[in-house]
């Protein structure tokens, strides 16, 4: 048997000393292997621990790969002074590429380019892969067998996400091709626009 107190202490020590986030299953098969515990009991202890840390400089959070301790977000502006290096700032192009891969994965380079309307920067893809946020998960069975890119758990961990759908924008489905005539477009305005153009074109022709 293990007391509530001991259970919390063991979990706390295990999560703190682990080099990666720790899942409930990892706790059960590792540090808690000798105590016959079930998942709900461990989850309960984790929640109790999270409560214990509520007012501390460090908090226990759950990310995609499991539980980890991290510093409170409010402290970051002061904490950054501890290290000379500044946190990297990511460009709009990089974040868009990353968001697009996260949304439509597994996705080819060509598909990324089609949506963004820009050729995908090799440098951005290299950075994303070096950071371990994006990896090649296979090849599309079309001519040229382009690589299929997907996001990783490391990506979710870095951005404090447990799943892509935590981002409301990316939880949406791909928009359907819609019939614009039925999409309540004012027909009159449309016609006006067209006549306008025809007149202009005619004018230009006479000029030429």
């Amino acid at each position, binding site marked *: 048997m293990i007391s509530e107190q001991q259970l919390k202490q063991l979990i706390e*020590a295990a999560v*703190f*000393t*682990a*080099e990666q986030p720790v899942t409930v299953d990892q706790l059960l098969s590792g540090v808690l292997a000798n105590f016959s515990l079930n998942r709900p009991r461990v989850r309960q202890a984790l929640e109790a621990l999270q409560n214990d840390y509520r007012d501390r400089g*460090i908090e226990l959070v759950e990310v995609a790969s499991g539980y*980890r*301790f*991290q*510093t*409170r*977000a409010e402290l*970051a502006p002061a*904490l950054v002074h501890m290290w000379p290096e500044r*946190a*990297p700032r*990511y*460009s*709009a192009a990089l*974040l*868009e590429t*990353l*968001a*697009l891969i*996260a*949304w439509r994965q597994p996705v080819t380079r060509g598909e990324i380019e*089609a*949506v*963004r*309307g*820009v*050729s995908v920067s090799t440098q951005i893809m290299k950075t994303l892969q070096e950071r371990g946020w994006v990896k090649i998960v296979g090849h599309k069975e079309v001519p040229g067998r382009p690589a299929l890119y997907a996001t990783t758990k490391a990506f979710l961990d*870095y*951005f*404090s*996400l447990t799943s892509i759908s*935590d*981002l*409301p*924008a*990316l939880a*949406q489905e*791909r*928009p*359907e*091709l*819609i*019939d*614009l*005539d039925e*999409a*309540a*477009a*004012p027909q009159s*305005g449309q016609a006006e*626009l*067209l006549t306008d*153009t*025809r007149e202009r*074109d005619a004018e230009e022709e006479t000029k030429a």
Partner: protein
Amino acid sequence: MIDTQHSLPLGFVRGEPIFDQPEDLYIPPEALELMLDLFSGPMDLLLYLIRRQKMDILDLPILKITEQYMVYVDMMRELKLELAADYLLMAAMLAEIKSRMLLPQKHDDEDDEGDPRAELVRRLQEYEIVRAGAQQLDEQPQQERDYFVAQAYTDARDLAGQTPAEVSLEELGLALAKVMQLVQVQAHHQIKREHLSTRERMSIILSRLDDQGSLEFQQLFSPEEGRSGVVVSFLALLELNKEGLIVLTQAENFSQLYVRKATRVDASPWQQDESRDF
């Protein structure tokens, strides 16, 4: 719409607060160069132009947008040529859609291509989602920027990589007892008493370790030799261990003992220094 009465002014002109952004604000070319960095691509620019017209993507005014787009692209070509390629592709597409819109629409269902703007509208919608997603991503707490992973240092990993803990005398005794049991099983063999040299046995063990690297404790004994043979082997092992020529290891308590030749690293630092000096 935003209640302009209570919102903050955009700025002040001659002391007068300005609440509304002037319509169709003229952007000087120098400023455009700065603005170019704000657009992450042609889709971004296109979306900006549509938004500025307060237009719905769904009733995309293709003519107006194409014209405005071309104005920007022309300016860009003067300023930043290498950027133009992606933007020109979009310009070509807009022009194509525009010309297809101008063609008289055939009303037979066989050749129904649909509205030429449909695909572009979808791309714009997709791009809007991606842009919103990128923004939400940027607002998420980011490692190194908004939080740091907290970890307690433990030397457990370092210890695990090291040579397993030293084998205690008790463990050695237990291992010997096992070998002795085997001898007893085969006790009916009559063994001729002969003189057994511990030093010779030491050499035999060393040469075997030389050939085979690491051996299980029991492999170093021949039960056929009887108790005295086993004892000599055991003494030889103890002697070798004392002289630092072999290393006894064990993964955990009561598990198999292993014997291997000592390497330079295992030797005492004193010996190492000596070898370096000469």
